[in-house]
C-alpha cells in the first residue's frame, strides 16, 4: 500500500474543497438557516411537535443528513469527473496508485467534506435549538456510514459520467426523491400504507432515523438494523467501485 500516495491524494482533495469556502462553508450556513425559517417557523412549526419533540429540533438530524450527503456526493463525483476532463487522471493512472489507493484517497476526501459540512450544519442548528446529542457514538456511527455511502456513490457517478450534466442525473433522479421520501421533514411512520412499507426499502430512511436515534433518542426504526444495513450497503458499493477502478472502467482505454 502506497500510504504516502494515498495521503497526498487525500490532502489534495481537502485543499481543493477548502479553496471554495463559499460552497463548503457558506452554503450550508445559508441553506440550514433557510430550512429553519421555512419549515421550522413560518409553517407553524413553532408550536408543532412530532412524537413529543419540537418540530425545529425534529428536523435537525435530517438537515445534517442533507448537508453531509450532498457534499460527500458532490466532492467525489465532481473531483473525479474534473480529473477525467482535465486529463490529470493520467497522473493518477501512471503513478503507483492501485484501485485501493485511489478508492481510499477519493472516499476519504469526500467523507471529510461531508462530515465537515454535517458538523457545520449541526452547529448552525444549535443556534436555533440548543444542544441535543443523546448518543454521541451512535450519532457518529450513522454520520460516518452516511458519508461513506454517498462518497462511494459520488465516485461511481464521476466514473460513469461522460458529460457534466450526467453528474446531476443521480442527485436529481435518485437522491432528491429518496431524500424527500426519506423522512427528513416528517416521520415515515405517519405515512399511509403502502408508502410506509415502501419507505423501508429507502436507505435514506435508515440514515435519517439513525441520526434521530443518536441525537434525539427517538427513532421509528431500530438503530442496530440501520447500522447493519448501511454497513452492508457501504461495503457492497465500495466493492463495486473497487472492481470498476481496477478494470479501468471509463478511465483506461
Amino acid at each position, binding site marked *: 500500500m*502506497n*500510504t*504516502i*500516495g494515498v*495521503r*497526498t*491524494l487525500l*490532502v*489534495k482533495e481537502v*485543499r*481543493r474543497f477548502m*479553496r471554495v469556502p463559499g460552497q463548503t462553508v457558506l452554503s450550508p450556513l445559508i441553506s440550514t438557516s433557510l430550512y429553519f425559517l421555512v419549515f421550522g417557523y413560518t409553517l407553524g412549526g413553532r408550536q408543532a411537535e412530532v412524537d413529543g419533540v419540537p418540530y425545529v429540533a425534529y428536523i435537525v438530524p435530517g438537515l445534517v443528513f442533507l448537508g453531509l450527503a450532498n457534499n460527500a456526493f458532490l466532492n467525489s463525483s465532481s473531483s473525479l469527473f474534473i480529473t477525467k476532463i*482535465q*486529463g*490529470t487522471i*493520467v*497522473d*493518477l*493512472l*501512471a*503513478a*503507483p*496508485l*492501485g484501485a485501493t489507493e485511489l478508492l481510499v484517497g477519493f472516499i476519504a476526501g469526500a467523507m471529510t467534506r461531508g462530515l465537515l459540512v454535517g458538523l457545520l450544519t449541526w452547529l448552525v442548528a444549535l443556534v436555533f435549538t440548543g444542544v441535543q446529542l443523546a448518543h454521541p457514538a451512535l450519532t457518529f456511527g450513522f454520520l460516518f456510514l452516511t458519508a461513506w455511502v454517498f462518497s462511494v456513490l459520488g465516485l461511481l457517478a464521476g466514473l460513469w459520467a461522460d458529460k457534466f450534466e450526467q453528474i446531476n442525473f443521480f442527485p436529481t433522479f435518485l437522491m432528491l426523491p429518496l431524500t424527500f421520501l426519506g423522512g427528513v421533514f416528517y416521520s415515515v411512520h405517519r405515512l399511509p400504507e403502502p408508502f410506509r412499507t415502501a419507505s423501508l426499502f429507502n436507505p435514506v430512511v435508515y440514515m435519517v432515523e439513525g441520526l434521530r436515534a443518536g441525537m434525539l433518542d427517538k427513532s421509528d426504526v431500530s438503530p442496530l438494523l440501520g447500522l447493519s444495513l448501511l454497513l452492508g450497503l457501504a461495503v457492497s458499493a465500495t466493492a463495486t467501485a473497487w472492481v470498476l477502478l481496477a478494470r*479501468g472502467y471509463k478511465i*483506461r*482505454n
Partner: protein
Amino acid sequence: MADAVLELEGLTKRYPKLVALDGVSLRIEAGEIFALLGPNGAGKTTLIGAVCGLVKPTSGLIRLFGAAETGSTVAARYQLGLVPQEINFDPFFTVRECLRIQQGYYGRQPDEARIDEVLGALKLAEKADAPTRALSGGMKRRLLVAKALVHRPRLVFLDEPTAGVDVELRRDLWQYVRKLRAEGTTIVLTTHYLEEAEELADRVGVIDHGKLLLVEPKAALLSRLGERRLTVRLSSALAELPEGARLEGAVLEDGGTRVVYRERRGEKSSAEVLGALYAAKLPIAEVETASSSLEEVMMRVLREGGAAR
C-alpha cells in the same frame, strides 16, 4: 549486453475499428535513449500508454525491470516517469505544489531540493509559485517534463516533450536529457522533430500502422540507409558526361551544369568519383557533399515499409 529495463512481446492493442499496436516486440536496454518514430496515428502513444497503465493491451507481454511478472504492475510504476503527449494541468495548484503532489503520488516525502533542481534544469524556477494556469504553452510542457522527473524514475517516457518549446529551451532540454542518461536513466522518446532524435537517440525504432518496421542503432541506420551526396557544379554546361566520367550512379543535372553522385554503402566512394571527374578535366567550379539526415532515412523506411529491414 546491458540489462533490459523493458521488454515487450507481441504487444497488441485492438480498438473496435483498428489495430493500434500489432504484435510489437521490443527490448529497451538500461541507460539508452531510444527514439520511437513514426507518422501521426502510428501507435507511439498507445505503446507508451500500455506500458504506463493508461491503455489496456489486448494481448502480449510487458516486462519491466526484468521482473518475473508481466503487465504494468503498480509496484513497477514507482520507477517510471511519463511526459504525456496531451498537456494536462490542475489549475488549482502552483508549479511547486504540483511537483510536491507528484512526489507524494510516487510515495516520496517532499524533497524541496529535488524540486528546485528540476525547476532549474527546466528553466521554471521563476514560475515556481505561479499557478499552473498562468503558464504559457511551452512552460506547461516543461512542467510536464518536470513532473515526470521529480521522483527520479529509472525509465522515462517522453511523448513529444518539445512540442511547442522554443529553440533555445529545446536545446537546453536535450542537454538535460543527455545528463539524465549519463546518470543512468533510460529514456524512450517520441518526436516529430527528427533533428531531435538524430541529436539524442542511441537507437531508433520506426513504427507505422501499429507495426514496428525496424529497430536499429541510429549510426548503423544512417550509414545503412543513408547516402552521401556529391554535387559538382560546372562553370559551363555539358551535353553529356565525357568518357572517363561516365560512372555508375553519376548523373548530369540542371541542364548539364551539375554532376550529382549518390553514394550508397559498399559503392564507389565520393572521393574516387571526384578524382575521376578531375581526371576527365571537367570545368569544375564548386564541390559540395552532404549526408542524408534521419529525416530522409525515415521517409525511405516508411515508403518502403518492412522491406527496408
